[in-house]
């Protein structure tokens, strides 16, 4: 699944595409399970990537605020 070079951008794009297809019911039952599975993978990937980013950004921001507090 999670390809080595997959970016959040690309993953989110693909996820949105799948969500749209499913929303407009332009997905056939034959591939529905497959699509949902892919969507789940992408959600999982995006969430972990987002979580990592959030953690890192949070760290940087708290350092920044500490500094400003001092200054």
């Amino acid at each position, binding site marked *: 699944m999670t390809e080595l070079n997959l970016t959040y951008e690309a993953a989110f794009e693909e996820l949105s595409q799948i969500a749209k297809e*499913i929303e407009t019911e332009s997905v056939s*039952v034959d591939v529905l399970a497959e699509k949902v599975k892919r969507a789940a993978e992408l959600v999982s990937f995006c969430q972990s990537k987002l979580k990592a980013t959030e953690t890192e950004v949070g760290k940087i921001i708290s350092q920044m605020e500490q500094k400003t507090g001092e200054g």
Partner: protein
Amino acid sequence: MEASNRYPVATPGSIRLSELSARVSRAIEEAFSYTSFWVIADVTNHTYKSQKDYHYFELVEKAEGTSVLLAKFSGSAWGTGSQKIAEFEKATGQRFTGGLNVLVKVTVKYQAAYGLQLTLQDIDINFTLGVLEQQRQATLLRLVRDNPEHIRIEDGRLKTSNQGLVLNRVIQRIAVISSSTSAGFQDFQHTLENNGWGYRFSVDPYFALIQGDHNAGQLVDKIVAVYQSGVAYDALVIIRGGGAQTDFLIFDHYAIARAIARFPIPVITGIGHQKNETLTDLAAHTATKTPTKAAEFIIAHNRGFEQELLQLQKNMVIKSQQLLSAENRKLSMIRTSLVNNTRSMITGHKDALVRNNQITINTTKSILYRHRTGLNNLYSKLSIQPKGMLYKHQAELSIICRNLKTFSNLYSKSQENKLSHYASLIKLMSPENILSKGFAIVKAKGKIRGNADGINLGEEITVILAKQQLVATVTSKENHDGTEFNI
């Protein structure tokens, strides 16, 4: 008269001069005593005895535009006349002297010893002022006319090149034209040196005689000398050193006004004049009333510069601090927006993920549900419809069966009817049936006859009845109309 004794008694036909003089004196006295005249004349050969306060002069009238004398009187002034002259000089700034055109009030007096003389009683200040003003205006017009590049009139004011010069930020190197003896120069120096701000000046004096029309050339020379010194003066100051109130007519001189108007260094005057400004003042860059005022002007100018400097410095300090605090604010704003936007961006992405997730989950469920429903619908159609269809076919078959029976019967009945109709018809028409009703068949010569043609009287015929047959002979033959049976 004692003097007359020196001359012999007049020869007949002559009189003594004194007698003539007495007669003239008498005539003049008769004609002019107690009468005074306002006359316009030019003053010449003026002398002044200051000890006695006596003015001696001549009044002349020249033909216009020439020097041809039309009239000439000796004149003098003392007492009231001298006092009037002093007033005149003070008021006009014009010395009572040769070349002056005046309106004077005179009395005519004849003295045997001095001859005919005019005694000045009064002098019209306004007339001379008018004349002076006329001269001034003429000079002014000439200045404008002859120096169009440097002098012109704008809005009724004289505008000169010198006025167009911009004073240096600081006036520190100063050339001063003054008379060496003048108290004005001392005042000027003193005021500069004792300024309250500690400003230092470099003053170069150019002394000259500053009085009387005739010194105009010298003054112009000094102005030129200032220029030729090559020193980069910030200003040329021309001051008049107190003294006689009548000195300043020189400053209305054409050559001086012209030189100042064209001078390449700003000229500041401190001439001190109570009435209207001199042409020099008008031509100069800046005119002040006194030498002290001129010095004060220079100090104020420098002070203005220093204050401007300090103001700039003050503004700069304030602005620098404002700039720094604005920069601080900008930085902190940008930091805040960075933090907030980053957080909101992450939140937005989280929401988007959840949204996509929800859409996927919910819609997938609804897709599956919809398919299941569709399948069920199809299935129920399939389980019901064929039965109905078969039942309909069955019903159709039954109808056909019933029809077969019904219509077969109807058909047989109809055929039976037809047949029985024919049977009745035949029965009706059978000969047995007809004969039994009373009809008979007539045979002649072995043939059945429908009429009597060919049957002769006496001929034997056979009459056949229902049950029997009769043989008869024809006895008569008649026609009958046969209407008897016509139903």
